[in-house]
């Protein structure tokens, strides 16, 4: 009896601990959400709060009525994220499959070529010179896709999964006269959906959240990603004023002069992070699994 009560006690403390921790993780985010729904005047005079006293959509109305810049950034982000992820995962899987085959004679050489880059790299300056000066990838969409196409860590995750597939399948397909390419697309890929999902999600997330590439290589504001646009307005009141002056004629001028500079920043935050936050919690299982495989089998 006593023992039972004691057991209940320490579980309660653990739950209390986790409820507090969860709040520490949620509240900062709620502040951003709340700021985006707060009227500009209230935000400037009263500061940030967890729950807005009155819900106000002005900032969102602004964001969407002056949306050219935002829509363009959205298109750039979506294009580079999805096309980039598709190409990346395809190329990495194509490489990981032969590396998983023990009978592949050049396995050691190519493994070394791939995994050595985890230990040593040229660093920012030579990479920048190559991409910008010699390959002329700056201010093009290719800069988002090509230089980050393969990630050795993800190749390890894929290779480890392929190694777990029964080799007898491959052998019998070969006896039937199937080519390696056919085996890869018709046999290996359909069996590897879980790991392809994991690696695709990891790649997609990294590409969606990419602001660094724009920072280094993009000066043309038509090719900014959402996150970089957001980074720029973190400090720039000018940008917002410019946005206000570009307002379409339907909006009256008094509202433009009182552009909701602060709350607009946070509305843009939600607009940029929203899609990933809505999608990703459903896939968190894949994340943990993929990272663990990569870390342990590295």
């Amino acid at each position, binding site marked *: 009896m006593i023992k039972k009560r004691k057991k209940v006690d320490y579980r309660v403390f653990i739950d209390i601990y986790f409820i507090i921790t969860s709040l520490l993780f949620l509240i900062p985010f709620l502040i951003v959400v709340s700021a985006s729904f707060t009227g500009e005047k209230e935000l400037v005079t009263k500061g940030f709060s967890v729950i807005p006293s009155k819900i106000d959509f002005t900032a969102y109305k602004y964001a969407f009525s002056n949306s050219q810049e935002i829509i363009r950034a959205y298109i750039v982000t979506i294009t580079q994220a999805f096309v980039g992820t598709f190409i990346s995962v395809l190329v990495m899987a194509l490489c990981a499959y032969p590396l998983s085959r023990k009978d592949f004679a050049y396995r050691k050489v190519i493994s070394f070529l791939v995994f050595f880059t985890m230990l040593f790299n040229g660093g920012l300056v030579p990479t920048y010179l190559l991409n910008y000066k010699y390959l002329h990838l700056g201010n093009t969409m290719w800069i988002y896709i090509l230089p980050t196409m393969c990630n050795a860590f993800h190749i390890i995750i894929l290779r480890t999964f392929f190694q777990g597939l029964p080799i007898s399948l491959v052998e019998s397909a070969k006896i039937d006269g199937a080519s390696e390419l056919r085996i890869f697309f018709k046999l290996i890929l359909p069996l590897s959906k879980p790991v392809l999902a994991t690696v695709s999600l990891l790649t997609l997330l990294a590409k969606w959240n990419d602001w660094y590439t724009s920072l*280094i290589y993009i000066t043309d504001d038509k090719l900014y990603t959402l996150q970089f646009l957001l980074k720029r307005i973190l400090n720039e009141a000018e940008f917002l004023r410019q946005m206000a002056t570009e307002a379409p004629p339907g909006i009256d001028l008094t509202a433009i002069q009182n552009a909701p500079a602060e709350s607009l920043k946070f509305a843009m935050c939600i607009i940029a992070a929203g899609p990933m936050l809505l999608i990703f919690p459903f896939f968190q299982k894949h994340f943990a699994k993929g*990272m663990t495989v990569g870390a342990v089998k590295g």
Partner: protein
Amino acid sequence: MSDDITKKDKNMKMGNKRRSKRKFKNNMELLVLTLPAVIFYLIFMYTPMFGLVIAFKDYKAPKGILGSAWCGLKNFEFFFGSQDAFRISRNTVGFALLFIAINLITGIVVALLLYEVKSQRALKFYQTTMLLPRFLSWVIVGFITYTLLSPSMGILNKIIELFGGEGVDWYTQIKAWPFILVITNTWKVLGLNCIMYYAALMGVDKALYEAASIDGANRFKQILHVSLPSVKPLAIVLTLLAFGNIFRGDFGLFYIIPRDIGLLYPVTDVIDTYVYRGLRTGSLSTTAAVGLFQSIVGFVMIMSMNAIVRKVEPDSALY
């Protein structure tokens, strides 16, 4: 006699050639599959390594990399002679060591606590909230820290004022920044870290706990003798990888969160932010020298850490 040898040699060479030809033929299809990735690595990863020669040159843009004059170790001397060398090395390594220790301890402790939670729904909720920052870019985390630290509107100052204190301009307080950066980084990475350790704990055979409990081990002893040994391999690998990156700072964290404020450089400037500014100001040769220094130290670190692990725990070594 000599004729004989050459003949034999020739035969052997022919044999080798034929064998390697056959080897090539048998493996050609698989080799073709790896080709896109191999070309990618040769162009985008290995070419820049040769580009590192500009660290030993006085790079002038119009002359290009090959045309610029050699200058020996001058770029390195310039960097190591400056005050920056010590400052950015100390910041980079100091933060990296703090992060290694904190991530190791918080990751394992929180995973052990998660293991005690029995309600599936609560477990899911806790994991999701802790993982939330992983899905946010540093830019958005930067907005969040701004809402907390902003001098006039920030939550932190509001709380201080609520208790009768005076608001602080956090973006000028050098001493506060090591704490701010450590807390922000922990907030961002804790979720994934503890879920990885949690996954390792889930892999433990439940019978081990039962056996320990029959042997009279209480919960604490079970953790000490069953749980901890089972997460040890993962802990070693993660720590090893982190040590390999000890000379690398997370650019997003150190660039975005302190908002690139020069006043804070003494505690927030790391090698990666320094290299970025070098690229922007156009001192490419010196900056490439710093980058090369960083890569070499990183390489030596990971090789030696791996050698140590291979001696102590051969199964956990990376290669």
